[in-house]
């Protein structure tokens, strides 16, 4: 049923000109496409949310690990960060999706994971490595007197880190983390290449079907732009929340 509607409404007027009679057809096209695209957008939203949360977890583990005095923890964290920052996201995605199952096969395990899991993991590791550097920078920017005061008050190293240093470092990281959240949203488009039916994938399907590239891709760009604006707004709210204990409000 859907198939017929797409074919009927668009194939004849593949390139609606500026004529006023074609405007209603363009609006109908957009409405028709929207349903299909929104189902993909939902996947994109889920993927952005999961990978951002998981990425934030990796960022804190790796970022705190990187400033650790323990040479093993420090080296391991630095190595992981460099690895994921140094290789292209698409290479990581393909590696997890195509190469990992083969390694599993050699070892006798079934490592063929669903695209959603692979996508979330690759995005989270990639953005987490970038965010880990932000976390590290913010932690190192906390005044050294804070460490001395914590030591004078007999806080354990762990208490010092999580109760004194990190709460002061979080407001410093927020602007950069906001940029990275938008970066992550944009990066989710790549999962369409491992056949996860996200927004970009659905648009590609529609285009193959209707050949109406202009409307579909314009709509797609606007949808991503809209989502980026929402993410930016949410991160601003988060920033205000993280800065609430500061005397003068944010930064």
């Amino acid at each position, binding site marked *: 049923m859907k198939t017929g509607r797409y074919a009927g409404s668009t194939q004849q007027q593949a*390139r609606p000109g500026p004529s006023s009679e074609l405007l209603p057809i363009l609006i109908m096209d957009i409405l028709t496409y929207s349903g299909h695209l929104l189902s993909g957008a939902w996947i994109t939203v889920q993927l952005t949310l999961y990978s951002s949360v998981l990425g934030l977890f990796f960022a804190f583990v790796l970022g705190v690990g990187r400033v650790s005095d323990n040479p093993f923890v420090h080296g391991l964290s630095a190595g992981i960060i*460099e*690895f994921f*920052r*140094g*290789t*292209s*996201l*698409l*290479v*990581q995605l*393909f*590696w997890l999706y*195509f*190469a990992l199952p*083969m*390694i599993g096969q050699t070892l006798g395990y079934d490592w063929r994971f669903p695209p959603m899991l692979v996508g979330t993991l690759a995005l989270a590791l990639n953005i987490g490595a970038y965010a880990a550097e932000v976390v590290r920078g913010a932690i190192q920017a906390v005044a050294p007197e804070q460490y001395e005061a914590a030591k004078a008050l007999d806080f354990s190293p762990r208490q010092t880190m999580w109760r004194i240093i990190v709460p002061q470092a979080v407001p410093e990281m927020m602007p950069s983390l906001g940029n990275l959240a*938008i970066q992550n949203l*944009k*990066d*989710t*488009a*790549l999962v*369409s*290449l491992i056949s996860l039916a996200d927004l*970009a994938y659905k*648009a*590609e399907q529609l*285009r193959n079907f209707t050949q109406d*590239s*202009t409307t579909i*891709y*314009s709509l*797609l*760009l606007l949808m*991503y*732009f809209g989502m*980026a*604006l929402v993410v*930016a707004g949410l991160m601003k709210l988060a920033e205000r929340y993280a800065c609430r204990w500061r005397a003068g409000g944010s930064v």
Partner: protein
Amino acid sequence: MLFGIEWDTSSHWAFAVSILPILGKGLLVTLQATVVGFLLAAGFGLVLAGLKGMRSRLVAWPARFFSEFLRDTPLLVQLFFLYYVLPDYGLVLPAFMTGALALGLQYSAYTSEVYRAGIQSVPAGQLEAARALDLTPGRTFFAIVLPQAIPRIIPALGNYLVSIMKDVPILSVVAVLEVLNVARIIGDRSFNYMIPLSMVGLIYLLMTLVAAWAVRKLDERLPKEGIHLQ
């Protein structure tokens, strides 16, 4: 077989070594796309920075919106847009040029900010001194501001060069034969994805480590007090 080069499947190591020259061909395309994309990004970014800095709001606001739009939408989608929509309006570019154009456009939003930040980082006292010495605005910009801004701009541009290199694999979706695409084709034909894809990962790691080191060295070598343009 790819590009007329056979591979040797007798062992993992032999396979890895025998596909190196094939990956090398893909790597060459990756580097070409990186350089062309970077040059476009540097050029467009300069134009965009100029437009965003205009006094006239009629110019500055659309430029800011355009820059924000480029920055907030995925490169993949921009690439699809350029590749499938431009031909509808009579502009047919080869895949490689479309890809380089998409990279250039996306990164121009970032480089325009680099130029702006570089110019703003010049202390206000320098401008006041130039005015006190009665220099013309043109001479102030080219003899005072720009020489001091360049040492700050170049390392930041270098970092974006590395980012562009890591985004080149996205061009594979419009059938540009860059290194990841080549590795995938090898995988399709030899039924072994593990070795070609792992090698691409290692090649990338090596390239970015070298590039990051080079940018750091460049940053150290650039005189912080400025570069004379004469």
